[in-house]
């Protein structure tokens, strides 16, 4: 799990990749919540 010793995050080649994944997760969450808001009215 820990690729930190080489200065890299787990699962991603760079920290930028890890940051992009967190922001993509936020985007996905917002899209899903927007769908939820509109699907059940």
């Amino acid at each position, binding site marked *: 799990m*820990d690729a*930190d010793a080489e*200065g*890299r*995050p*787990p699962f991603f080649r760079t*920290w930028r990749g*890890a*940051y992009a994944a*967190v*922001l993509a*997760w*936020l985007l996905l*969450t*917002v899209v899903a*919540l*927007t769908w*939820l*808001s509109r*699907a*059940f*009215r």
Partner: protein
Amino acid sequence: MSALDWLVLSGTLAVIVGYGVWKTRGIRSAAAYLRGGEDGRWYTVGLSIMATQASAITFLSTPGQGFDDGLGFVQFYFGVPIAMVVLSATILPIYYRTRVLTAYEYLEQRFDLKTRQLTALIFLVQRGLGTGISIYAPAIILSVVLGWSSLVTTIAIGLLVIAYTVSGGTRAVNQTQQLQMAVMLGGMALAFVVVARQLPDSVSFQDALGVAGALGKLNAVDYSVKLNTRYTFWSGITGGTFVALAYFGTDQSQVQRYLSGESLGQARLGLLMNGLLKVPMQLLILLVGVLVFVFFQFNPSPVFFNGPALDAARGSAAVGAQVREVEARYAAATARKTQVVTAWLDARRAGAGADEAARKAALLEVDAEQQALRKDARKLVQQADPSANPKDADYVFLRFVMERFPAGLVGLLLAVILCAAMSATASALSALGATTMVDFYKRSVNPAVDDAKALRATRWFTAAWGLVAIGFAVVASRLDNLIQAVNILGSLFYGPMLGVFMVGFFLTRVRGTAVFWATLVAQALVLAAFAVSDIGFLWFNVIGCAAVVVVALGLQAVLPNAPPSSPAAA
């Protein structure tokens, strides 16, 4: 509460406190006490960050907010993942490079002593009072529900936390928070399942979402641009980001959590873990409240959920008759609503368009009637006792747990609430002790203090802050307005605080004197804006931060240019 509940509750708390004390026995140096040994793995850091933010109010008020207003509050947390990324990429490397013990220590390296101690002082006042509330708020609600004296609950929670925080410092806080967070997450997931299973057999989960959606409880995202609406997508993504940047980046109770990471990488991963899990966790807690709301569409519910306050109003000579009338009308409306909502669901399942629309209109009509009656009840309760808390949503979830949950789970859910109270309080006490030691005692009172004495003094400071917090929590029961003021003031301090750090990190030509006065000006501006406008409080974080940056740049342009004070900003 049953004997099994008591066993689960006391067993959970004893194990957590015992584990914290045992794992941290034999701490010998002040640095290890303050930084936690610097061997925290990413999951320890991440869970600790989450547990610090999750106060008891999170588990009491948030389901109530879901019950009353639906999912909209989740937007407040949209800024958290953004802030975690920004902090990981910018501020964390600076903290690790400068090897600071507190966030404010960095400000002396970058600016000067007066800026460091001004921000540290703001933190001590704001967090010191806030910690009292983090003990008092759950204590008062638990006392109402369990029938205990709030003095007993307050002192019990406070002393337990003081015991392991003073004994093991940052490391004890981190170690116990892992277990506390596991209890909190597991307990809430179980609560979700139990509430869902309490719905009538004929109502599927999708039906439940349908009912919640029809009654406006699933409006999770509001894209409208209204400055005076507290939670919208835009206020969450901007104001929420600023709050999260300020809270996680400059509040010592959080900074201390990730400074205990084994390395910069582990601390970053801990923050990113918080960025991934925070929104789903809050959503889960809000959804529990929404499901409780749906449950009460099919079952009788009280018109006001704070039982003792409603009993007092019912027995009052002045408004008792009116209360009984409102209760009778509410019970009739609830019975009618159960019929209407069942009929609407039938029409919805049958796909009967016109019929469904008509039944939905009838449902909304009864719902509006219920809302109006709840409002009347709230007014009557306050007329009967002006000191009664009119926000009965805080009692909805705990009352549901006490009345509907099976034996054993009641104890577990109470453990969740007490764990949350303890975890938030422990982080705060540890940070208050550290800041008093590092930014004041060791910096200005006794710089030559040896390590053993420094460790002893930090323990005393931590214990003293614990006693201050308990004292404030006890006094707070008589000062409701003061609590509100402290809560609001807390949110007003974060903007200028973030501004100081932003200038420190990104505007390298600005010096200490300019930023010191800019902070005071920005703080005054935010307080004035709060006094004369009705802007949602999240925006004050943006205003305060921007004001420090602009005023500091302006002052720096006219002040004589002193030589750079820091290598840290480079």
